[in-house]
């Protein structure tokens, strides 16, 4: 705190927190919220104190505790306090409700199992009378939904209603953001959204809301992807509005405008392009971050026409730019812009080369290699430009001192690497090779980095060959001899180089030259032979090329597990030896291997032998071998790869003339390509499109290097995982997403319903076993689970997909039939009503999640379904499902049913009957908040189901939760709930109300909607069962008329309804077991044909007994 370490005071803070004085308590919680983190060990001491404060009568005590808690919630605290906080969500004071709702989000994050039980109440808070609480609930649900949109699709109609009705900007922003997350999952939602959003954009004066709307519209349009014509208007609108933002003098708005603009750019580049002027203007902005944003935009705005203009402008900025970071950014952007999609927009490559050369003048840039690779790429791909490029490079080499001048950092001198290589490789274009050769052998070169010197040496040899070639015909052999002399004089400098590569090459070449000199003196013609050393053409290699290498006949790829195809080839072919060498210096594989051949023949021979004899050698580096071996595979005559080239850009030059050239060249090269492919390619090329890269890759058989393979495969791996519906990611994601995960999992979980809190995990295990095979033991089961994990994952993802589809359907219906609660039909059965109807997604499984008080339990749950699933085939499951539904509650094999159930969930989420089933399952829910609802009363307008729960805080009170469901087509309002009190049980009424006054139900019910209200009763004696008579009065309002109706009911308070679940800890439980009193087998019940433990479970559920009893079954 304040920069001091106060960890020593942690315990004292806890002491202060527990002070009864508000002053100290406040300070204590403040200190705790500042200093505690998950690793603080004293946190666990605070649990009870916090619980006490949460239930304090003073709202500020509670508030302070909640605030503090929000900063240091740990999973343990979350688990222990979840229930208390949930209770606070229905606190009488909005001040507390608001905080409780917000903090619930933190609890969900730490303890995802709490989400299911708490969600109904949270949803209820969306309609809280207090706007603060309401928007807190919107906040939390939106936050949840954004992380895992698919689970909340069913809420879309509700939010849609809120969005169109709310005038609250803060809430609107959140909801709109949420919709942005939902639309990718449900495109129809997007269509529906466009209109209200554009209306908002038109009407709102709040910039933040406007910005949010624009962002969401963009997201929606992206998800609609097909770019429907009628939406061009909304895009135009967005762009216009953004333009206003960008033109604003406020830097913040400008920045955001550009940011949003770049999103539009991806899908609708045309509409952005019209604002080029504005964006170019932003390049002059004082703020660097704005300039960077503008640069991003430029990338998408270039066309053949304006490329030169834009780049010219950028070059100006490069000159002006002060910071190196910004200048480097500019440089990379220029190169990106020019090289994008195979230089699609460049019409004049001479221009581009000169731009690159100009860029080399930048001092201290880190991107020398980038420029270098561009130079190489262009020079190799664009044949027509080589003459020009070589001339430019020769100049560069000549002026090398300018580049290397003061900057020792290897930044820009990388360019020399490219220059030297280009001059050497295409030396036939050089006007004065002698001069260039001389430039390359200057003593100053020795100060360059090793890899560049190596290229110098190598290419000096190439130049030497060219010079010889040029002058050999002449009678006067003076020049050639002078050249040899020059080399012999200068090369020793390199032989002394510290860099092995340089040394090796130099000494190799110097011997070669000496030999040649001898021959020259004898007037032997050597030029042809020397040139032959460097003969052949280098082609760019497509990234996919490696894959396309046909498997040679007789090679069985599957025969040897450890023997990669290229290896076997390589072993009997020469190239292998080259490859070995090249591997060491991959950058110059081709030429220098050949040159070295002579010098290193002996060494190579040895190595070859080694390789041949040693299988491990080959295995160790199969891929690198592949790379170099493949060329030797006869497909390509001389060609080997220059690694640096293919790395950069696959494909070919774009302008048509170059395309033709390329084609010729390529045809020469490959003998074995299929003609069909070629045709296709040509067609494509004929269209003058850049689509070449695809076809080319097929044509060019030249092997790709390792790196390409890697990059190739990456995307492929990535794609499937995307398709997997996130599932693979789920387990790995951070807490946020874990949150959702319970939802998805729980979908499967309903099985577990009757397991109450504490000991459930063994119980579950047992249950699993009981169905498939009673004899299985836990441990074996666990193993099984592990094995099946993968399988399960796969399944789950499938199921989720299905579910998604279902969702969509549901969604559709909803969207068409106005926002209505999704599952009204759900409640048709008596027992089985989930607290609020609409959360079909969550409700069924919530039960399962609730009882898991330990993480272990949670883990074991998802596995359960799996165990049994394999046994029935899907179709049979389906049938059984249906039958079971009909059978109602009497099913004996709960287990199976659960599974079906769970399946069912996935197959048909929206179905009314399903939800009923889910409901029944839910009945058995052990936790107070979710327990069994039974029918209270029903008529043609309304149905009431109720549940009675004990109150942890105050044992003299019970809470009756009643769910009202509107069954009619009319609006129900002014509901009043009244009960005739008995001596023992009294309905708690607000202060000032008479003993016979009814309580107003705090909501109205639109047709088909259900909602839950809670009523508190004070109870004198809990050993007296009670029946209370009561009446519900309400007004039915239809279009024409409104009538007053009433419904009588009887509330049954059984003694067990007063019971409160209390965990039975393991030691106590163990004693019970030891005593031998608990034995299922010792019991025989007549006339009951369900297994004892099922019966027991049932009893426990309906009468609030704790789960310790049920778990006994397993032992």
């Amino acid at each position, binding site marked *: 705190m304040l920069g001091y370490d106060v960890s020593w005071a942690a315990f004292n803070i806890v002491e202060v927190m527990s002070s009864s004085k508000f002053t100290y308590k406040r300070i204590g919680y*403040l200190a705790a919220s500042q200093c505690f983190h998950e690793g603080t060990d004293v946190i666990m001491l605070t649990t009870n104190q916090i619980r006490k404060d949460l239930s304090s009568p003073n709202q500020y005590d509670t508030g302070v505790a909640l605030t503090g808690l*929000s900063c240091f919630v740990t999973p343990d605290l979350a688990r222990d306090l979840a229930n208390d906080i949930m209770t606070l969500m229905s606190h009488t004071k909005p001040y507390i409700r608001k905080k409780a709702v917000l903090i619930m989000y933190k609890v969900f994050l730490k303890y995802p199992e709490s989400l299911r039980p708490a969600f109904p109440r949270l949803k209820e808070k969306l309609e809280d009378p207090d706007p603060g609480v309401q928007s807190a609930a919107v906040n939390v649900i939106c936050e949840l939904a954004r992380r895992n949109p698919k689970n909340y699709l069913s809420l879309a109609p509700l939010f849609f209603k809120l969005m169109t009705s709310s005038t609250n900007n803060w809430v609107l922003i959140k909801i709109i953001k949420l919709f942005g997350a939902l639309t990718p999952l449900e495109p129809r939602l997007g269509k529906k959204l466009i209109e209200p959003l554009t209306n908002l954009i038109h009407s709102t004066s709040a910039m933040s809301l406007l910005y949010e709307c624009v962002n969401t519209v963009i997201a929606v349009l992206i998800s609609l992807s097909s770019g429907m014509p009628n939406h061009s208007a909304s895009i135009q609108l967005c762009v216009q509005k953004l333009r206003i933002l960008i033109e604003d003098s406020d830097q913040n708005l400008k920045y955001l405008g550009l940011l949003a603009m770049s999103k539009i750019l991806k899908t609708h580049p045309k509409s952005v392009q019209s604002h080029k002027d504005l964006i170019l203007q932003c390049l002059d902005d004082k703020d660097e971050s704005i300039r960077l944003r503008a640069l991003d935009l430029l990338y998408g705005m270039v066309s053949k026409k304006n490329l030169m203009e834009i780049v010219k402008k950028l070059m100006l900025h490069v000159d002006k730019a002060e910071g190196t970071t910004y200048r480097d950014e500019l440089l990379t952007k220029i190169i990106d812009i020019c090289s994008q999609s195979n230089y699609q927009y460049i019409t004049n490559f001479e221009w581009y080369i000169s731009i690159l050369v100009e860029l080399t003048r930048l001092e201290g840039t880190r991107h020398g290699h980038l420029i270098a690779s561009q130079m190489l790429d262009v020079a190799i791909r664009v044949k027509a430009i080589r003459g020009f490029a070589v001339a430019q490079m020769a100049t560069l080499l000549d002026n090398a001192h300018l580049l290397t001048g003061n900057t020792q950092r290897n930044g820009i001198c990388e360019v020399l690497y490219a220059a030297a290589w280009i001059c050497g490789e295409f030396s036939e274009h050089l006007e004065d090779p002698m001069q260039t050769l001389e430039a390359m052998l200057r003593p100053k070169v020795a100060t360059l980095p090793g890899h560049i010197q190596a290229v110098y040496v190598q290419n000096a040899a190439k130049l030497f060959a060219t010079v010889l070639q040029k002058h050999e015909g002449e009678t006067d052999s003076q020049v050639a001899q002078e050249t040899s002399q020059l080399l012999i004089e200068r090369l020793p400098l390199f032989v002394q180089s510290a860099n092995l590569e340089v040394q090796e090459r130099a000494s190799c070449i110097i011997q070669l030259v000496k030999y040649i000199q001898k021959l020259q003196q004898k007037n032997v013609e050597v030029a042809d032979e020397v040139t032959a050393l460097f003969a052949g053409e280098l082609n760019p290699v497509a990234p996919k090329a490696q894959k396309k290498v046909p498997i040679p006949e007789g090679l069985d790829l599957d025969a040897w597990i450890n023997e990669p195809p290229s290896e076997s080839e390589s072993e009997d072919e020469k190239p292998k030896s080259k490859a070995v060498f090249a591997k060491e210096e991959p950058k110059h594989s081709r030429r220098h291997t050949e040159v070295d051949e002579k010098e290193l023949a002996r060494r190579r021979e040895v190595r070859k032998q080694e390789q041949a004899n040693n299988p491990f050698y080959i295995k160790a580096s199969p891929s690198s071998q592949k790379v170099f071996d493949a060329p030797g595979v006869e497909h390509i005559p001389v060609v080997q790869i220059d690694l640096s080239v293919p790395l950069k850009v696959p494909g070919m030059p774009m302008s048509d003339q170059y395309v033709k050239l390329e084609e010729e060249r390529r045809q020469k090269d490959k003998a074995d390509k299929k003609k069909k492919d070629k045709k296709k390619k040509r067609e494509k090329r004929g269209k003058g499109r850049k689509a070449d890269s695809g076809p080319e890759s097929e044509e060019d058989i030249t092997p790709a290097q390792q790196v390409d393979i890697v990059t190739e495969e990456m995307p492929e791996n990535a794609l499937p995982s995307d398709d997997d519906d996130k599932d693979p990611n789920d387990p790995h994601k951070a807490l946020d997403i874990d949150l959702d995960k319970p939802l998805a999992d729980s979908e499967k979980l309903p099985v577990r319903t009757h397991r109450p809190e504490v000991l459930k995990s063994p119980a579950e295990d047992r249950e699993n076993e009981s169905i498939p095979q009673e004899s299985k033991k836990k441990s074996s089961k666990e193993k099984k689970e592990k094995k099946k994990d993968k399988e399960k994952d796969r399944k789950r993802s499938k199921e989720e997909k299905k579910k998604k589809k279902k969702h969509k359907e549901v969604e559709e219906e909803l969207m068409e039939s106005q926002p209505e609660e999704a599952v009204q039909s759900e409640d048709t059965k008596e027992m089985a009503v989930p607290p609020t109807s609409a959360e079909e997604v969550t409700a069924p499984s919530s039960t399962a999640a609730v009882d898991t008080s330990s993480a272990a339990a949670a883990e074991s749950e998802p596995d359960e379904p799996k165990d049994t699933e394999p046994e029935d085939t899907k179709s049979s499951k389906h049938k059984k499902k249906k039958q079971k539904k009909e059978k109602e509650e009497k099913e004996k094999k709960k287990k199976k049913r659960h599974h079906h159930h769970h399946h069912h969930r996935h197959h048909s989420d929206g179905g009314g009957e399903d939800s009923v089933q889910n409901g029944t399952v839910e009945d058995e829910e052990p936790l107070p908040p979710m327990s069994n609802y039974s029918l209270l009363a029903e008529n043609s307008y309304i149905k009431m189901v109720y549940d009675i729960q004990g109150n942890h805080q105050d044992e003299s009170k019970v809470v009756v939760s009643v769910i009202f469901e509107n069954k009619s087509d009319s609006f129900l309002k002014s509901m009043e709930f009244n009960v005739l009190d008995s001596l023992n049980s009294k309905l708690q009424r607000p202060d000032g109300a008479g003993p016979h006054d009814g309580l107003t139900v705090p909501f109205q019910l639109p047709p088909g909607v259900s909602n839950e209200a809670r009523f508190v009763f004070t109870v004198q004696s809990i050993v007296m069962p009670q029946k209370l008579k009561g009446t519900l009065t309400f007004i039915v309002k239809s279009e024409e008329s409104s009538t007053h109706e009433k419904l009588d009911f009887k509330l049954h308070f059984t003694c067990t309804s007063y019971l409160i679940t209390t965990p039975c800890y393991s030691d106590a439980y163990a004693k019970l077991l030891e005593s031998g009193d608990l034995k299922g087998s010792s019991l025989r019940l007549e006339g009951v044909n369900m297994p004892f433990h099922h019966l027991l479970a049932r009893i426990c559920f309906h009468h609030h007994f704790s789960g310790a009893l049920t778990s006994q079954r397993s032992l």
Partner: protein
Amino acid sequence: MKGHDSSDLARERDASVHVTGLLTSAFTAISHKAHARGNECNINFKMQFMLLFSRQGKLRLQKWYVPLSDVQKKKISREVIQMVLARKPKMCSFLEWRDLKIVYKRYASLYFCCAVEDQENELITLEIIHRYVELLDKYFGSVCELDIIFNFEKAYYILDEFILGGEAQETSKKNVLKAIEQADMLQEEAETPRSVLEEIGLT
């Protein structure tokens, strides 16, 4: 919770400038733009942490909505402070940092700086900062850096009433101040009688 030593404070006093003057000018600009309606409602937004620091880079208040160890906190705040201080006055208030967005605003000699998640609305975040400054201003009556230095706990209380767990819980200034006032009163009430009792008990 140690206070600052005296020499430190003296320096601070020199450096501190009244924030309020700026409140009227710089802020109104944003608040006008940021939202026209929706005064009394909830903001939604996920904040990772909030820092207040002086132009000299001295941390005045820090609130973390993600649990981190002290070492991490220190590292992050040092990094963020450095970045923000390097910004020039005419630059926009948003920074991309790691996978978060830093939204900052300078009020006189104090920088208010929030880190929010990537998807959050930057303008709303600015609005929140502004709200908080307004709240401080109302509570202290023309707030200045010294107020925050000497009454840092109050500043925290106000922040806690305003933002809970990284979500703005109450945007109504009135409600926040009311809650704070009542809590303060409770505190005073609790203090006076008790101290008397204690004295009696002691004597």
